C-alpha cells in the first residue's frame, strides 16, 4: 500500500510543473500539421478530459486555491526566498536539458548560477548570481527537449490533479523518474542521510502552490470571463508549450497574420 501511495505521490508531484491546473491552456488536432504558426493537437479524449478538468477545478477550489491564498499572506521576502530556492532546484533538470538541446552557453550560465546560489545564496534562497551578471534563464524540461528533437505533441489530455499535458510532455516528465532529475535521485531513489523522500514531495507541492499564488488573479479573471474554461485552458497550455519548445521569446515570432489577412480580404 505504501508503495502504491509512494508511486502515486511521485507521479503527482513530478508533474507539478503541469499544475498550470485546469487553469491554463488550449488547442488541438493531432499529428503535427502546422496551422497559423501553431501545431494542431488532437484532444483525443475530450469528454473524459472535460470530466477530469471539472474534478481538478473542484480540487483546486477546495485545496490548492486556499493554500495559495494562505501562502500569499506570508511576507514578500519569505515568498521570494521560497520561489528562488525552488527555481534554483529546478536547475538540476534545466541544465541537462540545456545540453540535450545544444544550449551550451545557457548550460554554463545555469550551472554557474546553481553553484553560486546554492552556496553563497544559501540553498538558493538569495539570487546572488544575478548580482554577478548571471541573469536567470528560461526553464527547460524533457518534454521540451523531445519537442526540440522533432517529437510532435501527440494527444492532448488532462491528468487528475496535475492538469493539462500531452503525450510528449508526459513522457518527458517520466524521464524525471528514471534518473533525469538529480533532486529526485538524491531524495527518493538514493535516500541519503541528508535528504528524505518528504523533501522531494514538499518541494514539488511548494512549486505548485507558489505557481498558483502568483496566478491567483489571472486564474480568477480567466474563469470569470470565460464561456468555455476548458477550451481556454487547453488553448493557453498548448500556446505556452509551443513557445517553450521553440524557445521563442519574441511575440513577433509567434504571430501568424494568415487569419487576420483572410479577414481583411473578406
Amino acid at each position: 500500500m505504501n508503495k502504491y501511495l509512494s508511486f502515486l505521490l511521485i507521479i503527482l508531484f513530478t508533474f507539478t510543473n503541469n499544475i498550470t491546473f485546469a487553469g491554463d491552456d488550449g488547442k488541438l488536432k493531432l499529428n503535427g500539421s502546422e496551422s497559423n504558426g501553431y501545431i494542431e493537437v488532437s484532444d483525443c479524449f475530450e469528454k473524459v478530459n472535460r470530466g477530469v478538468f471539472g474534478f481538478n477545478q473542484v480540487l483546486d477550489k477546495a485545496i490548492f486555491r486556499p493554500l495559495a491564498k494562505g501562502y500569499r499572506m506570508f511576507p514578500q521576502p519569505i515568498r521570494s526566498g521560497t520561489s528562488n530556492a525552488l527555481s534554483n532546484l529546478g536547475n538540476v533538470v534545466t541544465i541537462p536539458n540545456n545540453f540535450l538541446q545544444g544550449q551550451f552557453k545557457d548550460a554554463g550560465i545555469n550551472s554557474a548560477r546553481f553553484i553560486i546560489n546554492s552556496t553563497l545564496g544559501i540553498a538558493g534562497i538569495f539570487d546572488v548570481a544575478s548580482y554577478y551578471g548571471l541573469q536567470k534563464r528560461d526553464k527547460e524540461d524533457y518534454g521540451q527537449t523531445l519537442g526540440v528533437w522533432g517529437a510532435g505533441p501527440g494527444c492532448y489530455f488532462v491528468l487528475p490533479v496535475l492538469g493539462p499535458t500531452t503525450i510528449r510532455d508526459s513522457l518527458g516528465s517520466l524521464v524525471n523518474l528514471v534518473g533525469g532529475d538529480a533532486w529526485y535521485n538524491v531524495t527518493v531513489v538514493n535516500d541519503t542521510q541528508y535528504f528524505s523522500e518528504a523533501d522531494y514531495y514538499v518541494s514539488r507541492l511548494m512549486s505548485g502552490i507558489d505557481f498558483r499564488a502568483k496566478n491567483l488573479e489571472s486564474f480568477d479573471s480567466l474563469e470569470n470571463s470565460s464561456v468555455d474554461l476548458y477550451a481556454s485552458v487547453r488553448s493557453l497550455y498548448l500556446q505556452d508549450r509551443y513557445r517553450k519548445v521553440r524557445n521563442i521569446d519574441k511575440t513577433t515570432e509567434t504571430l501568424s497574420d494568415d487569419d487576420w489577412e483572410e479577414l481583411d480580404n473578406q
Partner: protein
Amino acid sequence: MNFIKYLIIFLFLININSTLFAKDPSSLINEIVDEAASILSSEDPVESKIIKLNAIAERSVDINGIGMYTLGKYRKSINEEQKSKYQKLFRSYFLKSFSSRLVDYTNPRINVVSQKKINDKYTIVNSVLEATSKRPQVKIDWRIYTKNPDRPLIRDLIVEGLSLARTQKEEFNSIIQNNDGDINALFKTLEEFLIK
C-alpha cells in the same frame, strides 16, 4: 500641364497631412493606459468606472474585427442576419468581459518599452505590467492594426506570449464544434454570459 502640377501639389499636401496626423501605436497605448489608470485609481463608483473603461475600448479596440476573427472558419458559413446578431452579441460580451477584468485592478502600472512594425498593417507594441507584492512582472504585447494610420486599433493582447484573441477563437470554436457546427449554440452561450 497645370492640372498635373495641381495634382502633384495636392497629393503632396495630402501626404504631409497624413504624416502629421498619423498616430504612433506606442502613443495610442500610452494614452489609453494612462487614461485607464486614472479611471481605475479614481474614487468613482464601479459602474461609472465600467462605463468609462468601455468608452476607451469602443474607441481604441477593433471589436468587430476581433469578433469576426474569433469565429474562425465558421465566419464563412454564417448568413448576414447571423453575422449581425453575432456582432451585437460579441460587442456586449467583449465589453463586459473587458471591463470586469480591468475593474479589479486599482492602479496598474504599464510601461511601454518598445514597438516593432511587422508590416503596413500591423505594429507590435511591447509593454510591461510592473510587478506588485502579489504577482510578478507581466509582459504584455499589443497587436495594433495600422491599416488606417490615423486611427490605429488594438486587435490582440499577447500576455507572456499567449494571444488572447487566439484563445478566444479556440474557445468559441470549441463551443460551435461541440454542438455540431451550430452557431446558435454560441449565441446562446453568449446570451447566458451577458445575463449572468
